[in-house]
């Protein structure tokens, strides 16, 4: 089969407009086979449209979709070796869990013994054997999600698409399912493409993340690359928290309102922004050698595992793991080490 080659899925020059809305702009992506790829972005950024184009549920205005080196742009959804887990799961309400999972195999007229064998294997893998006779309305949200997953995976798709599959789950279950999903993907070695607006989810599950905004991919890379080295203000703020410090380039550093900060590299602009994550700022009793800022605690927010301190000047946000209890009004030295300051390309 052509899809067995390592070429995976490729999108070339993808464009899609809905009336005046340019939902997908010039997107070109490459998803190697066997990767867990995530399209991350706020609602309305075009990530779901892109997913639907891959599934064959939407026709792009321009661009090509290639799977395993073969063009599938004009292939209908029914003929793509791609299956989808829909956001609301879209389980057939009149069919049992077993029949829901068997749906794709029955469509393709598999013999009954093989259907039973394959469906039971998937149900077992996802811990759903006991639910086989139930109807979707007798299942919890987490169970429905697993049925949707089983229903897609039983067809052994080349690519599995997941459209915000965890948005209907509560926070605790979501965290658990994220890890399970990651393990499942690694075990199966299939290509998973996830659409989400949840940056934590994206980082937990993904091999690679493409951050989208206004229909375009603004940055892509491994979770570490995207988190540690955001190129734009949007990416810095969308993935995790970030302190954004605006200033003018001066000598080997940045002249900002809060003081002079040494940088590792010379910024490519005269005036711009450097970013630093709250947990990258270190707290000291005495003034550090470089990039020390005297801060005064304005607000303390307890987060369970750590504290968030909001400090003047700035306000700068610092995530502290120390046992020391801070109170508003306390003064402290902050170290914004040069290697931790990320020079953004643009505003």
């Amino acid at each position, binding site marked *: 089969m052509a899809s067995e080659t390592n070429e995976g899925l490729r999108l070339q020059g993808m464009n899609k407009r809905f009336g005046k809305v340019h939902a997908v702009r010039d997107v070109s992506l490459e998803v190697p086979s066997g990767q867990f790829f995530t399209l991350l972005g706020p609602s309305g950024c075009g990530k779901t449209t892109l997913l639907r184009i891959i*599934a*064959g*549920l939407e026709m792009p205005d321009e661009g090509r979709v290639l799977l395993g080196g073969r063009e599938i742009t004009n292939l*209908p*959804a*029914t*003929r793509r070796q*791609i*299956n*989808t887990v*829909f956001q*609301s799961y*879209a*389980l*057939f*309400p*009149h*069919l049992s869990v077993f029949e829901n999972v068997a*749906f*794709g195999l029955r*469509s*393709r007229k598999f013999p009954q013994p093989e259907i039973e064998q394959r469906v039971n294997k998937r149900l077992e893998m996802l811990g759903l054997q006991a639910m086989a006779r139930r109807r979707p309305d007798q299942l919890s949200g987490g169970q429905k999600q697993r049925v949707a997953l089983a*229903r*897609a995976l039983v*067809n052994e798709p080349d690519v599995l698409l997941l459209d915000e599959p965890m948005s209907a789950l509560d926070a605790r279950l979501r965290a658990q399912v994220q890890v399970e999903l990651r393990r499942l993907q690694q075990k199966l070695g299939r290509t998973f493409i996830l659409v989400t607006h949840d940056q934590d989810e994206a980082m937990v599950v993904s091999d690679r993340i493409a951050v989208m905004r206004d229909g375009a991919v603004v940055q892509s890379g491994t979770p570490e690359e995207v988190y540690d080295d955001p190129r734009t203000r949007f990416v810095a703020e969308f993935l995790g928290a970030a302190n954004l410090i605006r200033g003018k380039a001066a000598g080997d550093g940045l002249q900002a309102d809060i003081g002079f900060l040494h940088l590792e590299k010379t910024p490519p602009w005269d005036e711009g922004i450097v970013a630093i994550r709250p947990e990258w700022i270190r707290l000291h009793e005495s003034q550090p050698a470089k990039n020390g800022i005297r801060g005064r605690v304005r607000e303390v927010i307890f987060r369970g595992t750590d504290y968030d301190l909001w400090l003047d000047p700035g306000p700068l946000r610092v995530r502290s793991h120390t046992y020391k209890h801070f109170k508003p009004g306390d003064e402290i030295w902050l170290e914004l080490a040069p290697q931790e300051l990320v020079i953004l390309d643009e505003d």
Partner: protein
Amino acid sequence: MKTKLLVWYGELTTTRSLVRRGLYFMSPGMLWLMVFLVLPGLVLIVVSFASRGAYGELLWEFNLENYRRLAGFGLFGWTADYLMIVWRSVWVALVTTALSVALSYPLCFFIAHRPERTRYLWLTMVIIPFWTNMVIRTYAWFLILAPALPFARLAALLGIVSPGSPLYPSVFAVYLGMVSMFLPFVALPLYASIERLDWELVEAAQDLYASRVRVFMQAILPQTLPGLSVGVILTFVPAMGMFVVPDLLGGAKYMLVGNLIQQQFGASRDWAFGAAISMGLMVLTLFSLYLYRRRSRGENFL
């Protein structure tokens, strides 16, 4: 007695006052049903066991003669005439319902996909024929099917009817009239279901390699079943007893059970036999509904 307070949809009240209020609200409707439906029904049952006098008057001599006659045992031995009429009525009702359903689906999808501005205009056009009396609407078909008009001419050209003759009375005209009469009864409830259709299920079926037939049977039909059921019942039940349309468009030769009943209470002056046929029709209708309900509760639609 200690009255127990309870909260009824936000209102603080007692069981007794709830029951009393329920009676106030329900009694006018119940009274109406008793006087105009249940009592006449009971009278009809009694009459169906009575006999016809020599001059068409009712004789209070009770026996099963009317039902024996309906089953075909007459003066000259057994005949299937009445059973044939009943069967034909069921058949006409079934075909009318099936045609109305088959026409309603595309119609409803069409209307549901109009922009909101024009959607209600289309719906109004479905309802407009109801503003006219049924008999007048049926007579309108006489004009449309008249010999000089294109439909009859086309049929004559194709050799279906002889030139210069109208398209009525005929089976075709009966179905035409029946379907045009009952289409809105299917289309409107079906539209309510189709408008709320969850298209994600259709997409899911496509995503899972379903053929067009399978998409319809598994993703569309189950979702539209509530509206479809209402439409089918609203069509099938009155179509079984319809007599105006088959009488006018089918001619006297196309006898349905509705015409038969009308004839007994009219020209034949045999109220007892008419009542017996009515009871037979009612039993048949209830039985059909029972079968239908059992069937639509089934799990698989394939």
